[in-house]
């Protein structure tokens, strides 16, 4: 029964996402609004992983290519700030949907990501962490956070980066290890504030583990994976359930429970009509049997 429901839902999601492509080839967070990088990437990942809609995916790539500015970074049309989380996601998407490539667009984007760093700050007694570690911030001039760091690390690893990238990746991994919560898993950026331990969240933990999937023997990864297994269905929301399921799948663990709840979540909230969330759900529920998980490093 569950498989039938999920099958119907997959078809519905595919149709809905394909129908709301913008004229510029991208997707907006909510239908009828301006195209943005994040929903465009998740829509492309979802459609390409579930087969077909190759033209839509190509149009999505054109949208991403059209956002590249002089320094190689991608900038949304009406937004004045470069978001490094979405730039990392765009690189990841390009690698997943286009495969190995030495395109100038990708090379410039890689260079831009390698040049970007979160700011280093003096260490503070209010935060039990190493503020000197520089990974990736959401935007220029700010501090490194778990999500943009995880997206950039995963993208650069998926792109097969080595050489000059190695030092950046190593420091970014150190930053993720440094910010792990006591129980395992990750909050958004800090593990503790003013002597209070912060609690980990499912989406951030899943993203960080995806970025660290090639470090499975590291104690932080093992502890955090244990935490995720225990909490994969704790947050009833499509982002958490989708990322948890994808992460568990990449680590070769059963993901039926979060996938089943994802189907229920659609019935409850319709994913708020948010294209980004619908696409994450489609990527999670609609992957072709036997195909490697799209976010796996292989």
């Amino acid at each position: 029964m569950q498989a039938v429901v999920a099958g119907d839902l997959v078809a519905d999601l595919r149709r809905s996402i394909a129908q709301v492509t913008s004229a510029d080839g991208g997707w907006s967070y909510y239908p009828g609004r301006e195209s943005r990088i994040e929903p465009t990437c998740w829509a492309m990942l979802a459609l390409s992983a579930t087969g077909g809609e190759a033209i839509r995916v190509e149009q999505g790539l054109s949208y991403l290519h059209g956002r590249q500015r002089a320094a190689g970074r991608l900038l949304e049309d009406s937004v004045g700030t470069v978001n490094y989380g979405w730039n990392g996601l765009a690189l990841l998407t390009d690698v997943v949907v286009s495969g190995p490539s030495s395109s100038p667009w990708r090379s410039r984007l890689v260079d831009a990501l390698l040049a970007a760093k979160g700011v280093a700050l003096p260490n503070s007694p209010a935060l039990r962490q190493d503020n000197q570690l520089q990974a990736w911030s959401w935007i220029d001039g700010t501090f490194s956070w778990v999500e943009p760091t995880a997206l950039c690390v995963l993208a650069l690893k998926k792109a097969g980066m080595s050489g000059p990238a190695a030092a950046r990746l190593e420091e970014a991994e150190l930053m993720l290890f440094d910010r792990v919560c006591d129980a395992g898993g990750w909050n958004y950026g800090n593990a503790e504030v003013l002597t209070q331990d912060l609690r980990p969240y499912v989406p951030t933990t899943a993203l960080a583990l995806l970025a660290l999937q090639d470090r499975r023997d590291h104690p932080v990864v093992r502890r955090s994976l244990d935490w995720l297994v225990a909490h994969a269905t704790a947050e009833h929301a499509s982002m958490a359930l989708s990322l948890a399921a994808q992460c568990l799948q990449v680590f070769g663990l059963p993901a039926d429970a979060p996938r089943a709840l994802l189907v229920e979540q659609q019935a409850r909230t319709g994913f708020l009509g948010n294209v980004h969330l619908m696409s994450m759900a489609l990527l999670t529920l609609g992957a072709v049997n036997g195909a490697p998980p799209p976010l796996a490093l292989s």
Partner: protein
Amino acid sequence: MSRHHPLQAGISRRTFLTLPLAASVATACRRSEPPFVESEFVLPERSAVGLFPAARYDLDLADVVFRGLGELGVDVRGRSVLLKPNLVEYEEGQAINTHPMVVVGAAEAMRRAGASRVLVGEGPGHRRDIEYLLGSTGLFDHLRELRLEFVDLNHDDVTEVATRSWFTGMRTLMLPRAVLAADVVVSLPKLKTHHWAGLTCSMKNLFGVVPGAVYGWPKNILHMKGIEASILDIVTTVRPALTIVDGIIGMEGDGPIMGHGRPVGFLAMGTDLPAVDATCARVIGLDPAQVNYLWAAGHFLGNTDEGRIEQRGEPLSRYRTSFDLIESWQGKRLRRSP
């Protein structure tokens, strides 16, 4: 209160200048020119602040708000209203967020008062998963039942607007179009302590209108520019017309997330946000003059001097209490007459 601006006069307070998070505001204080056009800000002679009894969330809060609108002379007939609650994080049984029944009550009151359209909008700065927050707090079910449109402010289309003050140094802000299109923006905060800023109430709540998809989470650029400075620039630029504070159960201690609930028993309302926040600070035993952004706001944006605040509804003394404060805020309690 003197109309002479402290920024112009170079007045400073030792506490104000020594707090690291107030550095950018303090820098502004040392400038010869204030970081705004003075003629655009005129303090009203007096500001009305209503404290309306509401001991529980299962009361008819729409009636409380509706009567409050009348008491304060707020007219929303034919106007579009955007309600901005404070959704931060969910912990079962904890008083972190604006209670869904306060949002429901405010929305029903606005409709009853003749608003042409009522929207609810939020762009959480902490949890970026709005579906999780709406679902876990129970607000999603109420929105659906009342057919209330919700706007995800973190992911709305944006327009660049000139800031009306520049304590942060930022001359423009990208703001969600839903906020800019609303005739009336209503801040709908929870009354809470805040471990960095002292108090999070109607002014600090407006951090949530700044889109995370543009500025990242937790609206990190605003923290880097200074929380107090950012609060001032956002409030001057967004120009909220009204606030309705969920003071039924507030949060004391290590707010805005890790504190604990404290029943207070009112909804506070007013059109002068600094006046409402200063009143709420006095209620919980915090000296508004020690809350940096309130101190600054009181010199150009609204009345924080008790003598210029006209109390409506119940007297402040009915609710006066002493919230638990973390150590760094202990010295900033209101000194009361014996």
